[in-house]
């Protein structure tokens, strides 16, 4: 049918004409940078990553080397010695003192940044990959598969997380890798649920039906159409999850189930010195503050991301 000379036709001006299309990525980035908490989180996190990368340059001492017998003045739990604050110049400088094995605490905290960031990313990465797989399969294929997988997730969620992690580590044996594995397993249901919810909301949309009509396989639709569109809530959840993972792995290390000595992991540093809290509180406070700063920056970034990516909040 041709539409020539229709008396009822009205020219509608395209309201978007003349406007450059805004790319999703740029739009998102701008939204993120509008969030104050995200900026703070991102900045601190950037600094922490730099510290982790250049740990060997920043740290004045080997983090695992006891200084007893190497330095004359070295003794276990030596108080901090800062030259600027009046510590005698003859004494070697130790910004945060020495720990119970006469190792330089500052160097250990610096190297700990590397270890703890790695723990956060690896643990959550593991949980996200498995959670995404389980959640998307459950949401996409539905019915029986959904029921089976999600009930399995319910069982994992039925335990207080740290207790289940403890039970898993007792089976696997203590160690940093196993501790990460345990915390990762415990975190899977969270991501599986998030993923399933997004898949369910996307599955029914027209562009999925279109892909199917064009002959795309189920696996292809899942990989190329659904998962990329469901990533947003996963990223938010993952960012917040990193903070939790660092705290939980540190807790396992604190209990002696995670990082083994002499590794400079913050949780194990606190665990090793917890009986010294009344005489040398800085040995607890310094790694403690390091954990707080790291987790706070991930939490701030996560909150900022959520606000930036939540379309309901767009004003």
């Amino acid at each position, binding site marked *: 049918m041709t539409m020539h000379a229709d008396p009822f036709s009205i020219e509608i001006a395209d309201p978007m004409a003349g406007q450059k299309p805004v790319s999703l990525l740029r739009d998102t980035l701008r939204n993120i940078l509008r969030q104050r908490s995200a900026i703070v989180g991102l900045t601190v996190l950037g600094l922490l990553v730099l510290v982790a990368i250049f740990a060997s340059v920043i740290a004045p001492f080997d983090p695992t080397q006891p200084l007893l017998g190497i330095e004359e003045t070295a003794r276990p739990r030596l108080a901090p010695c800062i030259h600027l604050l009046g510590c005698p110049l003859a004494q070697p400088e130790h910004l945060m003192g020495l720990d119970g094995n006469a190792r330089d605490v500052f160097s250990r905290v610096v190297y700990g940044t590397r270890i703890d960031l790695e723990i956060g990313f690896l643990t959550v990465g593991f949980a996200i990959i498995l959670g995404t797989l389980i959640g998307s399969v459950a949401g996409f294929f539905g019915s029986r598969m959904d029921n089976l997988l999600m009930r399995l997730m*319910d069982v994992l969620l039925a*335990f207080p997380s740290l207790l289940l992690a403890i039970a898993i580590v007792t089976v696997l044996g203590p160690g940093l890798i196993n501790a990460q594995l345990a915390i990762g397993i415990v975190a899977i249901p969270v991501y599986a649920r998030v993923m399933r919810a997004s898949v369910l909301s996307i599955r029914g949309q027209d562009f999925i039906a279109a892909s199917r009509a064009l002959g795309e396989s189920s696996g292809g639709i899942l990989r190329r159409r659904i998962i990329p569109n469901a990533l947003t809530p996963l990223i938010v959840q993952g960012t917040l999850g990193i903070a939790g993972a660092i705290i939980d792995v540190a807790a396992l290390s604190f*209990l002696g189930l995670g990082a083994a000595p002499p590794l400079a992991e913050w949780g194990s540093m606190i665990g090793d010195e917890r009986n010294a809290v009344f005489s040398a509180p800085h040995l607890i406070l310094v790694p403690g503050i390091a954990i707080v700063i790291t987790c706070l920056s991930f939490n*701030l970034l996560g909150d900022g991301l959520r606000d930036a990516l939540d379309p309901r909040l767009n004003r």
Partner: protein
Amino acid sequence: MTRYIIRRLLLSIPVLLGVVILVFILARIIPGDPCRAALGERATAAICDAFNVRYGLDKPIPVQFLTYVGNVATGDLGDSIRFGRPVSQILVERLPVTLELTVYALIFAAFFGILLGRLSAIRRNSPIDVATMIVANLGVSIPVFVLGLFFAYLFAVVLKGTPFALPPSGRLTPGVDVIPLAKAWGLTTLGGPPRVVLDFISNINTVNAILTLNGSLLLDTVRHMILPAVALGTIPMAIIARMTRSSLLDVLGLDYIRTARAKGVRERDVVAKHGMRNALLPVVTVIGLSLGGLLSGAVLTETIFNLAGIGRTITEAIQGRDYIIIQGVVIVVAIIYIVVNLIVDISYGLLDPRIRLT
């Protein structure tokens, strides 16, 4: 409503079964055979054969599983390797400590969380709001063991000699005695399950002190509980404060609130009677969910403050490789957690009729 409760009850059965299966599997995949794991160097071939027969480990796996389920259902959680006593008996002694700590922490978290969240929602963007949100953000980023150790140092060393000093370890000051209820009420001859229940209640010092009108015991218990409870409750408090704030802000933006204001309801009543009542629904869920975190955190808090609850039992069991205790504690705590979540779900249905329909 009855139908809703029944459905919720039925839904929790598969989860409960799954939990038992998972713990059973975890116990069976411990590397090496359980006998050697349990007895260590004492394990010889003859002893191990006897051990396997005694614990039914010579039977097929399905039989073992059914035996295990039967044992758990009747409260038999096996004997601790280290203490040589039934795990259930250890739990009767130690679970009350954890329960007491958790309840104190929960009360602290709920009271201050709701209070702070409400304050910062009403005075949005005021200094109070900003301060509360900073505290809330810090609260979710502090590991409970760091906070606990910090409090222990602050209140036992820095504030020593001031009226604010608090004991950093243990449940009671030496010299303060707890009289078991069975003794106080002359029921020492009582046996069986009622006695177990009585002993359990008796071991909750706060309840014991109230029931026996023992003022000095109550005071001492509370003084010892403040630090661990505050340390343990800070993270849930932060989460509850954030939830209350955002939920109350959502509700206060709704039309019916405007209507209430328009018809001249006092602002205080608008917030208290119209706003809070609806805003609290998601908060109730968060409070229920925080129980898992509290039970997890109790493991760490008890270790720091030297409280002989199930948390410390677990850490001791880890050091002594006492798998039976770990298994028993994990399963009991998981069951408690499931039951509490069930109660939260049901109370949620009571509070909000819409939930029952879905």
